[in-house]
């Protein structure tokens, strides 16, 4: 589990870097770093980003939920 956590934060750091490198970064000055890299309250393994398009399951996986509530980024697993 520890290795998984390390891997998770590695991916987080990578995805945050990618996000800032995109043109979208210029439009998010009002979004705090905490919310940007924040982990969904629902589960420590769902990742919340400004493009949330999925819903965090009980076991911590983010799955698409079209038309329903969203709280995580399904492209991040």
């Amino acid at each position, binding site marked *: *589990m*520890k*290795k*998984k956590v390390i*891997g998770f934060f*590695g*991916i987080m750091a990578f995805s945050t870097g990618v996000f800032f490198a995109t043109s979208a970064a210029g439009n998010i000055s009002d979004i705090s770093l905490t919310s940007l890299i924040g982990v969904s*309250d*629902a589960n420590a393994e769902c990742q919340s980003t400004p493009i949330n*398009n999925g*819903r965090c*399951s*009980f*076991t911590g*996986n983010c*799955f*698409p*939920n*079209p038309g*329903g*509530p969203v709280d995580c980024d*399904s*492209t991040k*697993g």
Partner: protein
Amino acid sequence: MKKIFYCLFSLFYALVSCSRVAEIKNNEKGNLKATDKLVLVADKKFPLDSGSAAKPQLIQVYTDTAGRRSLVCLNTFTNSLNFYDYETLAFTKRVAYERKGPDQIMIPLGFYIKNEDSTYVYNDMQNDMVLINSKGKVLSRTSVINNMDPKKQVWTLSYPQHYPQTVTPIMELSGKLVLPGQFMWTLPDTLIHKFNFTSVMNMHDSTVQFVHNYPDSLYGFSYIWDDPLFTMVFCDAGPGKDEIIYSFPISHNLYIADISKPGYKVVYGGSNEAGTISSFEKPADGKISREALNEKACLTDLYGGIKYDKYRKVYYRFLRKALPESGRKLRWEDKEVTVIIMDEHFRYLGETSIGTMHEFYPENAFVTKEGLNIEYLDDSDVDEKFMNFKIFQPQKI
């Protein structure tokens, strides 16, 4: 008169706007007689390197043409398959997949090794099944969402979402690749007869068909289940040709199907101890809270994977037993894992509690000639140096 009208209207509105609650009773509770139990016969410890963790997404025991058995694990962090010799436990090789270029597989979430030169990898990014050779060259890509745009999530209303696990693997049956899937959330009643949850890909011409509906009695009538924990479809190949056995978490029954036909034969396959399983009541604000979800998950008996043991001609079915309502904090990992044993005709042989989900990870379970392998989580191995399995066999009481 007006008051009576408003009262009647309110009552009618309340009745039609309330979704029904499923009450799935276990009619055999307390009536079953055990003749067998599950006993621990061996364990195996596979060494992990610094880039590999316990609880891999998917494991396949692959036997090559020389008869050597490999335990193959999908490492989703390094985009690779790790091979171990199942007998000696030694790490033998790693096959890594590209993350860019023509041979990329961005998010491998499942795999099936057909032979030394042909591996099918389920790529969750594009929702396609990728055939790749031993040199890492992609030979074909087949969409399992009928070539819909994966970014437009509306496809999830028509095609299953796939989350392969070791206990519910990608299977080959009669030249077809069977990829079990599911509808993740509460299934709208309008889809109950339209939505098929299993993808079946013809390995010769790469056509994909979708088969098998959720049973009405379990998931119809807009019953609110609201989490993949309840809508997960566990399954395994049965002994018959093209036979697949489904285990829904919320049903004491098992559903036997043919991968090329709709419909089921339903048999009892429950626990002597499991109680009634009920869906959520519709909340006033329409939203199930995390607390309510945790309470339902912990206080309900929920079935898990089904495995057929062709060496002993028995079935094993997992049950995550309900926690007692003790007033203490409810934790999912505190639930006990029970394995129900049935003979080849689904007659009850017994059930054995093997420990809690702190100790066992029943999503990673598979059968070998040695018995039922279940991943064991060793708390004392703080550096995660090993991936552990306990192997069980049924034995007469």
